């Protein structure tokens, strides 16, 4: 890894430090949620661990003032880049009234935030791809120059909506980026049993669009691919499919026990490639980080997570009457 790569990509030193910080913040929020879950304080966690580089790298390549997101449930890192805070995450984890995604109506990980043009998502996988295509179609109709990014797992890429979405975007040449976060498992089902042909990116050709495969443990590679795709889209050249491969470091969710279907060694091996370590080393090598600065960042983040947790734990639940509101416009 040359330590000048980020500059070649047009990223400042500050920006890569910010990327690292956001990846770390995402990881730390996620880890805290597991602790809270194991302590019986929150009923559910679904994890971004192992995918922070993808999420942060991608989000940094977009225009946070105008681009749109249709994310999936692991995109904590992306949400932080686009403007959500640790507190927002914890409010959602505790299902409190102030949760900006849903006022506590949805499980954690079901993002949606009108402040940042993050379209509300559901649990059934892959539906959001079509919403992204629709947003992109609207943008094109209105002659705007924003792009729409949507993400999904490699298991989800086998749903019919993937096919219909990519085809629609291809036919109408829409400014949308489809990014698969291939973490090699769909709950217990490994890629080999999930994905005929073994590659999501290879499917792009069937829709006449570029298909790009990148190392999802390297935020700069992801940044570059998304940047290229976004530039292309803004120039009116249409959609791109990106497959960023990493590994799901945690169980599927707090309801899962991943020891039933994968070996501890496999997970340990993957941890050696953890993007957080790799990227930290890169920053050390580039002279942007040293022990002191790292400790400072760690402390800051710990405080941020503590405060967020505390706030959310104290915050009010929605009133039971909220069960009945917002079914239709009131």
């Amino acid at each position, binding site marked *: 890894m040359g330590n000048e790569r980020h500059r070649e990509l047009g990223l400042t030193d500050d920006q890569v430090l910010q990327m690292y910080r956001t990846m770390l913040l995402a990881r730390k929020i996620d880890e805290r949620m597991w602790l809270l879950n194991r302590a019986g304080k929150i009923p559910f966690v679904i994890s971004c661990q192992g995918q922070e580089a993808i999420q942060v790298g991608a989000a940094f390549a977009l225009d946070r003032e105008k681009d749109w997101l249709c994310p999936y449930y692991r995109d904590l890192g992306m949400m932080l880049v686009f403007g959500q805070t640790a507190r927002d995450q914890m409010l959602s984890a505790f299902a409190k009234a102030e949760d900006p995604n849903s006022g506590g*109506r949805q499980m954690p990980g079901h993002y*949606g935030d009108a402040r940042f043009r993050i379209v*509300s998502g559901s649990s059934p996988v892959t539906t959001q791809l079509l919403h992204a295509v629709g947003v992109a179609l*609207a943008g094109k109709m209105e002659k705007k120059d924003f792009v729409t990014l949507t993400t999904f797992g490699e298991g989800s890429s086998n749903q019919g909506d993937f096919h219909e979405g990519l085809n629609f975007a291809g036919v109408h040449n829409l400014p949308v980026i489809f990014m698969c976060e291939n973490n090699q498992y769909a709950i217990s089902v490994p890629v080999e049993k999930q994905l005929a042909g073994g590659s999501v990116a290879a499917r792009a050709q069937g829709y006449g669009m570029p298909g790009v495969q990148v190392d999802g443990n390297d935020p700069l590679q992801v940044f570059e691919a998304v940047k290229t795709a976004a530039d292309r889209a803004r120039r009116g050249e249409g959609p791109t499919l990106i497959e960023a491969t990493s590994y799901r470091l945690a169980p599927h969710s707090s309801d899962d026990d991943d020891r039933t279907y994968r070996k501890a060694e496999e997970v340990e091996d993957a941890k050696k490639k953890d993007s957080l370590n790799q990227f930290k080393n890169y920053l050390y090598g580039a002279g942007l980080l040293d022990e002191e600065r790292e400790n400072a960042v760690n402390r800051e983040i710990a405080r941020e997570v503590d405060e967020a947790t505390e706030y959310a734990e104290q915050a009010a639940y929605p009133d039971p009457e909220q069960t009945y509101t917002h*079914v*239709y416009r009131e």
Partner: protein
Amino acid sequence: MPILSYIDAVTLALREEMQKNPRVFVLGEDVGVRGGVFRATHGLIDEFGPERVLDTPLTESAIAGVSIGASVYGMRPVAEMQFADFIMPAVNQIISEAAKMRYRSNNSWHCPLVIRAPYGGGVHGGLYHSQSVEKLFTGIPGLKIVTPSTPYDVKGLLKSAIQDEDPVLFFEHKRCYRLIKGEVPEEDYTLPIGQAEVKREGTDVTVISYGLTLHFALQAAEELQKEGISVHVLDLRTLIPLDKEAVLQAVAKTGKVMIIHEDNLTGGFGGEVSALIAEEAFFELDAPIRRLAGPDVPAMPYSPPLEKEFMLNQEKVTHAIRELAEF
């Protein structure tokens, strides 16, 4: 007032709303150059161009899902499902997504889209071009379901649907398309979604219906009038939200209720209406609540004698009302 057919009222409502609001657009299979297989979007592409009259790939889930995305952004998509039977691949997008967008986002997002779909039989359409599918959606809070029976109602309600801030399924009975004609004002009017209408006043039996069967009821009422039986006919027009007040009032008028629809009996919307009455107007009733509906078979067969057997008609309706009147 000009006399228009049911389908011309559809086209007119679309045209007027597209003229008024540049964010209204239509999309679907063959809606462009072809003007729709029933010609409901005929002429629109010439007036508004292919950008606002979009021929989509043959993918209903995408039609619904893309409409959701576009409407979340702020557009006003009016999607066509070529036949209501082919809404099935879009059920996930409609039920999991459109119906729940506002609720799940705690009112941060909403999706004001309309899905139009020709439903119903009597057109030699066989099993898959004749179905009534409203029962799949009447139990899904977050959706509105509109089922007009006259050209006047079509225009007023479709315009309301397009202006509505929530997702609306607009079911057009395809047998009505060219069969039913009526006066339609040229001016820009809307009709409130969620309001039933008494289409005929009467004192002996109350019929509650919608769509094509509403016309059978009106014809039957005419016929029975000659026999001295006075039939009160309520057109639900909107299934969800259901106009409960109107239903209860109509029941109170006669104390004898017959609910009629073409959809299969079991699980059809008639059950809901009956349950409402049995709970809230029980003491108004002078007789058991009757339902007259399509039989409980998977769909309407193609062969003429079978199609005829499946379909309701004026005769069957007259017979059933007479029986109830004599109860």
